[in-house]
């Protein structure tokens, strides 16, 4: 237990933990087998209020900050990194619905889990580097006409789809498209290395027309929007590492070698201690950055923002690499019983996702060098 959390945060953590263990864990075999997330689990997440977490109270949310968001991400990811990911998409993207009055109508259905919101932000050309993207939307009278493709989306079997794209004036906007809109095809779901059930795939827009008011601004310079995602991602990676480590420690206590538990072997207990150390450091780093962000929201200070940006980049890198390390070592400790069990080995593929999602870690190293003043943009 971390003494960092206040009473309310501990209660939040325990509640999400109980939900994950009692309601999500029993569904994992089915999710891993079908690569589909049960619709009623989305609804349940909405009932519990996960998507209201960082929405201002005047709009029906709880007005909470990054620490609470990380708590939800971490606890869900311990059991299901994929569920943590789909919840994160809502936590990050639903606040965009407040940016444009015409989008308000989706706010309550999305927060309550009645409607699922998906997010797309990877163009085939330039991938994460939006400077290389071709324009996605062209204005035609009272409508935007969208043409293009987005890869590696999450939740793409959704009711409302959000895609980031450039206008012909190279202005970055978030475009919202309702399921069934002609010219919008989100039917492709990829069989990925990890994150089974997160519904990721390719979306195609072909002369897809939406009203002008179905778009809102997302400034490409809005660094907080992106750095927030890195903090969330690090919290998910942390939960993923903790989830497989907890299972592995239990396993090593029960599994015997020469009538003695595996933990009686020094090589095993030392390795578990080392992995626990990595997780503890990751935990401290994630919540340090989250606390710093919440402080930044209260008192905007450019110096603090720069320090936080470096921290957000660093923790996304460190914790995602840690998750891969922890998950891989844990599966090795399980031996064949881990390699042959999807309920265990999914953590390896899931952990790898954190090294790639949002921005690949190689791009993060590059960004970090830039923020440190080592290179020029």
């Amino acid at each position, binding site marked *: 237990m971390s003494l960092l959390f206040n009473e309310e945060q*501990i*209660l939040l953590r*325990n*509640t999400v933990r109980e939900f994950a263990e009692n309601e999500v864990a029993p569904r994992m075999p089915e999710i891993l087998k079908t690569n589909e997330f049960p619709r009623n689990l989305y609804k349940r997440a909405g009932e519990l209020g*996960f998507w*209201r977490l960082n929405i201002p109270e005047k709009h029906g949310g*709880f007005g909470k900050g990054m620490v609470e968001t990380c708590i939800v991400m971490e606890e869900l990811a311990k059991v299901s990194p994929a569920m943590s990911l789909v919840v994160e998409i809502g936590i990050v993207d639903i606040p965009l619905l407040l940016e444009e009055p015409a989008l308000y109508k989706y706010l309550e259905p999305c927060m309550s889990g009645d409607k699922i919101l998906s997010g797309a932000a990877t163009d085939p050309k330039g991938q994460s580097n939006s400077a290389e993207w071709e324009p996605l939307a062209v204005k035609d009278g009272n409508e935007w006409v969208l043409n293009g493709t987005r890869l590696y989306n999450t939740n793409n079997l959704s009711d409302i789809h959000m895609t980031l794209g450039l206008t012909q004036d190279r202005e970055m906007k978030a475009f919202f498209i309702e399921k069934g809109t002609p010219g919008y095809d989100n039917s492709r779901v990829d069989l990925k290395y990890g994150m089974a059930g997160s519904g990721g795939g390719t979306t195609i827009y072909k002369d897809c027309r939406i009203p002008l008011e179905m778009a809102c601004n997302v400034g490409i310079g809005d660094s907080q929007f992106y750095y927030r995602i890195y903090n969330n991602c690090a919290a998910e990676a942390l939960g993923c590492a903790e989830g497989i480590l907890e299972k592995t420690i239990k396993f090593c206590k029960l599994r015997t070698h020469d009538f003695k538990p595996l933990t009686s072997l020094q090589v095993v207990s030392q390795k578990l201690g080392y992995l626990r150390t990595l997780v503890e450091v990751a935990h401290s780093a994630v919540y340090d950055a989250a606390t710093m962000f919440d402080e930044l929201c209260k008192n905007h200070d450019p110096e603090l923002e720069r320090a936080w940006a470096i921290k957000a980049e660093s923790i996304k890198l460190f914790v995602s690499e840690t998750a891969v390390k922890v998950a891989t070592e844990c599966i090795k400790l399980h031996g064949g019983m881990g390699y042959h069990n999807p309920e265990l080995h999914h953590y390896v593929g899931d952990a790898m996702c954190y090294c790639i999602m949002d921005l690949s870690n190689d791009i993060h190293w590059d960004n970090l060098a830039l923020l440190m003043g080592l290179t020029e943009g």
Partner: protein
Amino acid sequence: MPKVLACYKWVVDGADVTVKKDLSVEKRFESKISDYDRNAIEAAVVAAKAMGCEAIGLTFGTERSKLSAKPALSRGLKEAYWINAPEAATADGKITADALAAAIRKIGDVSLVICSDGASDTLARQTAPRIGALLDWPVVTAVTKLTIEGNRMTATRKLEDCLEIVNVEFPVVVSVLPDINPAPLPGLAAIMGSAKKKTTEIKGEELGIAFSTNTEVTEVKGYAMDRKNILFKEGEMADKVRELANVLKKEGVF
């Protein structure tokens, strides 16, 4: 307005307890509302709704049990009372019931007290009967269904081999089994709302009771399952299986 009061206990989380080699028990930080008490709280919230009154909570514990207020309030209670007494750390069933009954008198206007059948740490199952005796109220135990009808209630009791239906007039003390409800998980709205609800501390000395007991817990030991570590090496596979079956028979497995 009459109140429905749920008694609950703040216990060490079993998941945070380690049984060591010498069977001594190491308790760490984590505590929680006793598992079955969640059902009692939910039963109180449901009963209060049917009676058109408020459900409140009451716990008896040390300084640390103050942390139980928000988790209890997030489960739908309007107000939480907390008896703060260091003696709670070593209290037996008598002291616990003395403290709770005195606090119930002090709070006043309580029509229905709901306890769980037993706490998840001690499972002594004494609290409800003792509170009833001290208040001189009827006690209905092992309740799996509760229906409110004006100033009376009908309770279904789950006994060893039958169900018993009891109709009783308020005030009454009830102990419920987990079957009574699923004790739903509180949502985030309820968690955030719990901070705005009232928590009242009652100091142990305010109750005017003697915290003395003739019972002393001398030791708490865990139990551990040992492996027999028998390896069947001799003979063919059929011989090994036969030998295994013999050992299992001797152990009384079948």
